[in-house]
């Protein structure tokens, strides 16, 4: 074995040895200093521990019965919000996705659609919900519109990227037969992106349900409203029951959406 071969090591990520150590040392120093700035009052934390335990104890046993009507109503409202917002969001996201795919849309349309998608993705659902509650008043309408708007950003972006990554040859072949733009869309592009589109839609349904539980906290309707009320009235046993219901439904949604995704692949 030559000495050169014996001395071989994989090349490091940062070639300059001094720069490499400077970066590692700097990062470590910052972590230590940052930790030092966080004031932890251990005495208070110890005191709070007991209070926390009492608070958690308040959750048991969960009470499904006393506020049964409220829970069912909130749940129905959340599910309705989820279904309506998902359907509306999907219907609106398709045209935006087509417009935001660089290989389909001319530049001005592309920029407009990308802009709308970027706005929808920039703001967290809660912020949009606060805005819509101010515009449309408390209740599920604001929540539904929030989720539909967020769905446009999510599906629009992912579907547009899928369309941009299609196999060009298949679209070219259909175009070469003399097919029109819509026919190319129907025969060459849709078959390539449909399975993932269905999978993403199912996934978004599941996200929208989870979000609908949060949006109640800012007054945008749904089971989150019911949960918020339970906390405000110190009915922790009812709150626990609501949390369990939410967990069960989220798990059911997640399981069915992953099943759907497996089926369409």
């Amino acid at each position, binding site marked *: 074995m030559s000495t050169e071969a014996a001395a071989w090591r994989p090349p490091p990520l940062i070639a300059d040895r001094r720069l490499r150590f400077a970066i590692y040392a700097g990062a470590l120093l910052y972590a230590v200093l940052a930790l030092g700035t966080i004031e932890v009052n251990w005495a208070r934390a110890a005191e709070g521990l007991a209070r926390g335990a009492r608070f958690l104890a308040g959750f048991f046993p969960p009470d499904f019965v006393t506020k049964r009507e409220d829970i069912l109503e909130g749940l129905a409202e959340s599910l309705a919000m989820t279904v309506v917002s998902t359907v509306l969001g999907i219907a609106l996201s398709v045209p935006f996705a087509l417009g935001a795919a660089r290989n389909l849309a001319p530049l001005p349309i592309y920029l407009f659609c990308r802009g709308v998608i970027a706005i929808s993705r920039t703001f967290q659902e809660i912020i949009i919900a606060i805005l819509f509650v101010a515009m449309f008043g408390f209740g599920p309408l604001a929540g539904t519109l929030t989720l539909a708007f967020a769905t446009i950003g999510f599906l629009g972006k992912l579907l547009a990227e899928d369309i941009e990554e299609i196999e060009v040859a298949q679209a070219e072949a259909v175009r070469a037969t003399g097919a029109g733009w819509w026919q190319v869309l129907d*025969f060459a592009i849709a078959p390539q992106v449909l399975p993932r589109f269905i999978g993403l839609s199912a996934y978004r349904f599941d996200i929208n349900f989870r979000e609908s539980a949060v949006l109640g906290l800012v007054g945008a309707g749904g089971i989150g409203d019911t949960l918020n009320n339970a906390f405000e009235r110190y009915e922790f046993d009812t709150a626990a029951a609501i949390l369990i219901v939410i967990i069960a439904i989220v798990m059911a949604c997640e399981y069915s959406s992953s099943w759907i995704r497996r089926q369409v692949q």
Partner: protein
Amino acid sequence: MLQLIGLSKRYRTGDLALDGVSLEVPKGQVMALIGPSGAGKSTLIRCVNRLVEPTAGQVLLAGQDITALSPRGLRRARRRMGMIFQEYALVERLSVMENVLSGRLGYVGFWASWFRRFPPADIAEAFRLLERVGLTAMRDKRADALSGGQRQRVGIVRALMQDPDLLLVDEPTASLDPKTSRQIMRLIVELCGERGLATIINIHDVALAQMFAARIVGLRAGRIVYDGPPEGLTPDVLTAIYGEEDWHATIRAAPDEAETDPVPA
């Protein structure tokens, strides 16, 4: 049938892919276009149906100037130009019948194609052609379930469904084994003979070109450097097309070919 006059294409990158190509392909002639990678073979046939826009020159199909057509007129003209692709370019998630019927997209309206309601005559023709290439049993299979040779036969049927006057064939055998390559070439040449189609076949395999084409055009750096019968491909000519190499084995490999199966399923 097809006439190219001073056809040139310069890509936006500055590469001159075609440099004033003039050529005439009469009705019923099978012409093979050979040349090294990057010589402009693909660009040439894509300029004919304007999948690539030529920079200068004219393309006349039965006297009609293709380069001057509006988008609508171009779609009509494309119906008369069937195209067969390297790697088949079938829409993989559509069935064989849907791929075959997509050859009629230039003739049927959007809604008819959306609901897959093609005229009975088209469906009858699809059945007849699938039987001709021995793929009747595969009718409702998804295109990605087929072998390479079967897929290329579907590609051929799709092109013939257009009832074209001209066939543009881009590297039809590039991903096929030698036996299947010969079967596919034989099928293309037979069908062109039956229908009196003018045909341009881009092909890398010089031996195959000599075996099946009535006329060979050699392209180098976007210019025609040979135009004549297959017998005229001497080592000197091949050197002019491809550059220096020992050509004797290539030329001798061509003539005999015992295997004569009709196209099996």
